[in-house]
């Protein structure tokens, strides 16, 4: 396996597909799944302010339907308690469909066992609501940036 030299120039070329041609800022897309319009509004704004393109879904079912229709996102923020199809069911469904998108579970006050069940359903990460702390989201962005560079994995030290 070859490890290319990790210059900033080559990194910039590799993330070109996510780049906004005008601002050169890397733009990631986020799906916010929550039945509460207040939360959808707040989380959308927070993510937008950090450079995300956002879309919302009002239930787990809407999120699954989006994916079934061929939509894709860089990251999904999934609420747990929703009517019709909750976060646990939706996450299981998406993983069952082969969706490998990063899914961050977001909820308020769940019991240990509920959080565990949520994580086991296929979450990459779990955060308590509300998600207004940029410090929680910035590492996620860094992670996405690193993912979009094809050469993953540790560098070989000579």
């Amino acid at each position, binding site marked *: 396996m070859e490890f290319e030299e990790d210059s900033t120039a080559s990194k910039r070329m590799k993330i070109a597909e996510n780049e906004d041609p005008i601002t050169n800022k890397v733009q990631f897309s986020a799906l916010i799944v929550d039945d*509460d*319009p*207040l*939360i959808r*509004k*707040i989380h959308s*704004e*927070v993510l937008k*302010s950090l450079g995300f393109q956002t879309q919302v879904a009002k239930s787990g079912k809407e999120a699954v339907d989006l994916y079934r229709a061929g939509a894709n996102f860089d990251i999904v923020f999934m609420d747990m308690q929703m009517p019709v199809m909750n976060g646990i069911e939706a996450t299981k469904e998406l993983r069952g469909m082969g969706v490998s998108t990063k899914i961050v579970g977001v909820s*308020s*006050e769940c019991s240990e066992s509920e959080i565990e069940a949520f994580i086991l359903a296929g979450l990459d990460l779990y955060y308590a*609501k*509300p998600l*207004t*702390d940029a410090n929680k989201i910035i590492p996620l962005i860094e992670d996405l940036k690193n993912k979009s560079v094809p050469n993953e994995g540790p560098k070989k030290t000579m």
Partner: protein
Amino acid sequence: MDVISQLQRQFIDYTSSLYREGYVDDQFSQLQKLQDESNPDFVVEVVSLFFDDCQKLVQNMAQALEQQNVDFRQVDSHVHQLKGSSSSVGASRVKNACIAFRTFCEAQNREGCLRCLQQVNQEYSVLKNKLQQLFRLEQQIIAAGGSIPMVE
């Protein structure tokens, strides 16, 4: 002091008092920080959504508590939702009232619940008035040609 400075001073003092007296917490200031030229009415919109939520949930709680056989889990789920909303907007007194409310739901104590419902109702009404006052001050500053100061 000119008009704008006076209004700005008033705004700063009023905002500080809201934090000091526990009506709003840091979460509210996070929301204020998200407001900018691209979404100048963000806070007002979020707060409106919140008060719509409050009204609806309080009504639901009242209805549930009126039943012959109260479904406390139902009441609790409404309170839980309101607690979540109030926490998201930084309405800390409303949130605290909800926390107390939940213990009475758990204890299946109807009288206690009714008292808490009254408390929640009161807290959200008072907050509504306070925030409307705050928004009025903001509008006055803007109308006078000034800018809204950031309160740390």
